[in-house]
């Protein structure tokens, strides 16, 4: 895989969508859709990505695409895949088709979690990609189960008594891995090679695959739109969002995370991450700086645990 070849790949999601400048979602989606030469059918949960790419009567989609509701992209995709299997078995269809569902963290960690778990347990042959921007951005930056501790959102603001979100996010990737599915991974759009190779594995693996991708949101995270890629890289370098994969029962670190574990790359302090975004600014000075220490301790403990799982 090289960049030059990738630039010649089919344009499956085209320009003209209404996502914000600097939004990571279309960057991630394009990388994912570059990862297979096979025909693709896309399902989407309700969210920024859905509303911004399909304002009727316009559509950014050059491939078949379906959205039905917020909490059910995995179920909707299960239905499409079930129809494909049935028609193929009956000899009414012969082409090989890949299925991918996109959803934000609200659709994935929270309201659509049951649907995701059910579709994975049933073993549908599809890949689910979560754009994790760590809050409900489409409705105006409300807290989700993926929101980082200490982050300010409109439903967990940086108040004078309570400094943003009080809980750590749930570790959804590990919860999904507990389903013992064939393939799951965490990725980041700054490392396109890592992300695309993981998406390729997800597409090529028979059965369900899950990709959880950190997705900076300039509006919700309070950073300049030009910093999206730099901030997604920082998420990996601080180990708040390690790159790893779970492939047929084996855990492996990848990209910068592997190099940090091997000692050839520096693990940066979480303060670098917190300082890069306005949603954490109340933690970097004043009476709530101890929250930053708690976050660092949590990152360190989880990083240790992950390295053990990856036999580092």
């Amino acid at each position: 895989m090289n960049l030059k070849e990738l630039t010649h790949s089919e344009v499956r999601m085209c320009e003209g969508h209404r996502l914000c400048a600097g939004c990571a979602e279309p960057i991630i989606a394009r990388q994912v859709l570059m990862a297979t030469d096979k025909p693709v059918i896309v399902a989407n949960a309700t969210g920024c990505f859905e509303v911004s790419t399909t304002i009727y009567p316009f559509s950014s989609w050059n491939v078949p695409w379906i959205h039905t509701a917020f909490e059910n992209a995995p179920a909707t995709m299960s239905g499409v895949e079930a129809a494909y299997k049935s028609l193929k078995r009956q000899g009414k269809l012969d082409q090989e088709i890949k299925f991918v569902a996109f959803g934000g963290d609200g659709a994935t960690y929270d309201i659509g979690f049951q649907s995701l778990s059910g579709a994975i347990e049933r073993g549908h042959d599809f890949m689910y990609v979560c754009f994790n921007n760590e809050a409900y951005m489409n409705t105006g930056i409300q807290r989700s189960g993926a929101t980082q501790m200490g982050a300010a959102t409109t439903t967990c603001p940086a108040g004078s008594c309570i400094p943003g979100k009080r809980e750590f996010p749930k570790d959804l990737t590990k919860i999904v891995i507990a389903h013992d599915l064939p393939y799951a991974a965490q990725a980041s759009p700054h490392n396109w090679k890592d992300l695309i190779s993981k998406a390729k594995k997800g597409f090529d693996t028979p059965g369900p695959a899950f990709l959880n991708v950190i997705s900076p949101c300039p509006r919700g995270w309070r950073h300049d739109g030009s910093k999206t890629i730099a901030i997604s890289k920082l998420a990996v370098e601080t180990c708040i969002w390690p790159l790893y994969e779970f492939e047929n029962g084996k855990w492996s670190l990848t990209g910068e995370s592997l190099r940090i574990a091997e000692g050839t790359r520096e693990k940066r302090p979480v303060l670098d991450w917190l300082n890069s975004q306005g949603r954490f600014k109340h933690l970097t000075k004043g009476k709530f700086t101890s929250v930053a220490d708690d976050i660092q301790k949590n990152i360190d403990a989880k990083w240790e645990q992950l390295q053990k799982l990856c036999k580092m």
Partner: protein
Amino acid sequence: MGEKMAVNGDTAIAMAWKQINPDVVAAYPITPQTIIVEAFSDYVHDGEVDTEYVCAESEHSALSICVGASAAGSRVATATASAGLAFMWEMLYIAASMRTPIVMAIANRTLSGPINIHCDHSDAMGARDSGWVQIFGENVQEAYDNTLIAFRIAEHMKVRLPTMTCIDGFIITHALERFEPLDVETVRNFLGPYQAVRPLLDLKNPTTYGPIAMPDYYFEIKYQQAVAMEEALKVTRDVMAEFAEVSGRKYDLVDGYQVDDAEYVIVAMGSTAGTLRYVVDQMRADGKKVGTVKVRLFRPFPMEDMAKLLKGKKAVAVMDRAMSPGTGGALYSDVLQSLVGMDDAPLVINYVYGLGGRDVMPGQLTGVFEDLIKGNENRINYMGVRK
């Protein structure tokens, strides 16, 4: 014709599905629907159908799977009841708006609370405005026949709307009755092969399903659904006529029984319609001019047919096996609307009855006729409740 046999309503529906051989079935178990999916699972696991059967983890997902499968370009069936239908509520509207011709069997059961597994029509009434065609069956034979008819209505190119066929929970779902299926060849000829419209699986014509429609387009999309519903009225009539040709069983959108010279009429849906014919026979034997009307097609509501049957009557009682607290039942509103502008329209009163599976005894229905004859003008009445 197939052989005569004794089965319950749920099994009859599963047998219809087996003959239809849908491409995809996705469902979640709920009493009193469960026998349908259990029986159908046997056909799947014994290799008697080509169906991809998806055991969903909830009713919300079951209908989401059906919408995805239907949009993909396959023939789809499902079944539910009560809380399951309520849990599908969001997806009912989406299935209708996306014009996915899914056929769903409803084993009518009340809604919690208190939790209760028995029959009334509260579940189906909650789906009344969702844009689904709704057909009510009276007995096991109709449970089967309506299933076949429903696919033809749903898939008709002028309709393309999801369709639900309702039967009374336990009273029909679990009761053994004599029934006569068609042979499989007749069924398959009657339905014909499934014709997909812009299926997702058509890679040459990539289609965007379920885009966001702003105020500049949303209303027109909903209007198209209203037009399709109007078409469904005519299409249902035509399909029922065609069904009569292949089965010998004549159905209409609303069936009148002894209404021609009747002065007093009771209107009902579901299994109560059968009890009412018995009551009418008894009272006719005593010289009472009574008749009854069974509503088979509830959405779209056949208002003109209803008006024709009720014209010239002295008084009418509408039986609602569901209630809208604060007003009468939904069927009552529809019957009243059917009579607007009629000269000398009959007095129409409402009886809410049989909630949560409360037994409906012939004597009680005789009592309703007697109320009408006595001139009861109380608009909303509750039959058989302890006050």
